[in-house]
């Protein structure tokens, strides 16, 4: 797999938010506006690339038994740096993201890529994976933020688009609107990739949260 493939992989085929459904907490919480989504996405991408590179460099040093604490220390270091940078240069975004900047430490995308990819692959490949996954995350968050801001407040990046023509639907700025847009985007990605993005056989009926109530889970014929 070339480095370009690795980057492309993260953007659509294995988009961390819309296909792997990781990192749903920041995705739903901070995407009330396009700029917030973009800020969160870029911050996470920076941390992800840096931590992927460092963890890939240290993979022969870190003992497998204590790998998770080691990854967390590396990630937390970069998150602190990103937090300070945001506070110094873009204080507005820093204020509106608030608690979710320190929470990047426990973002499961970063830990997931460290565990699944960076600890097994070369430095350059890990960097490419970080860029791809980070771009995928940023794009998904930007898209969600833009849709929610446009429908919920009638603005885009703070500029008024439709707010004074038709009344915006406040629900999109609230948590239910976040889930709603999230669901629609996941459905859209699934529709565009014709279901190939999610390997259904791996998911299986028995892993479905409503398998018990479904009744058809043993036969595995959920789709019919």
């Amino acid at each position, binding site marked *: 797999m070339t480095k370009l493939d690795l980057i492309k992989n993260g953007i659509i085929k294995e988009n961390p938010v819309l296909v792997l459904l990781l990192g749903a907490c920041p995705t739903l919480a901070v995407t009330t506006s396009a700029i917030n989504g973009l800020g969160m996405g870029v911050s996470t991408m920076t941390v992800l690339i840096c931590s992927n590179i460092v963890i890939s460099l240290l993979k022969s040093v870190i003992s497998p038994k204590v790998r998770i604490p080691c990854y967390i220390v590396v990630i937390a270091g970069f998150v602190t740096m990103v937090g300070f940078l945001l506070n110094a240069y873009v204080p507005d975004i820093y204020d509106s993201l608030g608690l979710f900047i320190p929470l990047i430490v426990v973002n499961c995308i970063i830990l997931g890529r460290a565990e699944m990819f960076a600890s097994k692959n070369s430095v350059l490949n890990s960097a490419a994976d970080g860029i791809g996954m980070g771009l995928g995350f940023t794009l998904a968050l930007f898209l969600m933020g833009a849709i929610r801001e446009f429908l919920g407040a009638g603005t885009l990046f703070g500029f008024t688009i439709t707010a004074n023509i*038709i*009344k915006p*639907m*406040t*629900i*999109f700025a*609230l948590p*239910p609107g976040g889930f709603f847009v999230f669901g629609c985007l996941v459905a859209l990605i699934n529709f565009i990739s014709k279901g190939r993005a999610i390997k259904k056989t791996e998911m299986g009926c028995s892993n479905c949260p*409503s398998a*018990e*109530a479904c009744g058809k889970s043993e036969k595995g014929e959920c789709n019919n």
Partner: protein
Amino acid sequence: MKNYKYDNLIVASSPHLVDSITTSKIMAMVIIALMPAFAVSIWVFGARAIFLTGICIIACVVFEYLFNKITKKPSTIGDFSAVVTGILVAFNVPVNFPYWMAIIGCFVAIIIAKQLFGGIGQNFVNPAITARVVLFLAFSTEMTSWPTPQRIFLATDAVTGATPLALFAKQNFDQLPSNTEMFLGTIGGCIGETSALALLIGGLFLLFKKIISPTIPVSFLGTMVVISLIAGIDPIFQICAGGAMIGAFFMATDYSTSPLTTNGKIIFGIGCGLITMVIRLFGNYPEGVSFSILFMNLIVPHIDNLSRRKLYGGGVKND
């Protein structure tokens, strides 16, 4: 063709084909049962109630038709369920609600709550309740500016005022309408929910025709009465106010979003009544019927699991 030989057997839980009743007949009965409330709403709120209800019905039917067309499914507009949804959406908004917002409500009800989950019988939440909650959260100003009753045909400019429940929440007890007014429906509120009498007539018609079973309405309203008595407030006021009547008879009893067994229905009704009263007494919002029904809709699969009937002579889980 009644089979008298097995008349002593208690038969419950769907599906059982017992006579020639069809979905379209059931839905037609529900439409008939909603007519008294519609008549009262026209008398109380004027002609705009007709236009708004008409637009909601048309929007729901058109959305249903288009969705079936686009997804190449057989058309289901003939079963009148979209018409019922349209009437219920209109009944759940104030009479001076903008038309385009009502159409968004119909879109939410038909496309999102109903068709995306597989159409009639597959929806896990009541479409009209979902539409109401979405509209309430999206356009809370419009959803809570209630015109005071005009009682004049073709009233043009409506004066807005608080509903009895809003007055109750603000503790303005001396401005509350009398229980007779509450019962007849000459009060402010959503189009179809004001007249307890008209809704009761429609509900009793459905009970008489055996379209709905009395379990859910009785346990729903009964729980509200019990909690009102415990809290020391007027129970008649509580069950006549807001959406309690229309919710208990027409929306909580939706087949696909209520439990199958009688025990399950009792749990469902008590849960609805409990959450409604908790929101009314302690919550930020004056009214909680729609939230309570929506919430109980979501846990119906679990209620069904818990209230599953034991097999006769069983007791050992058949794995």
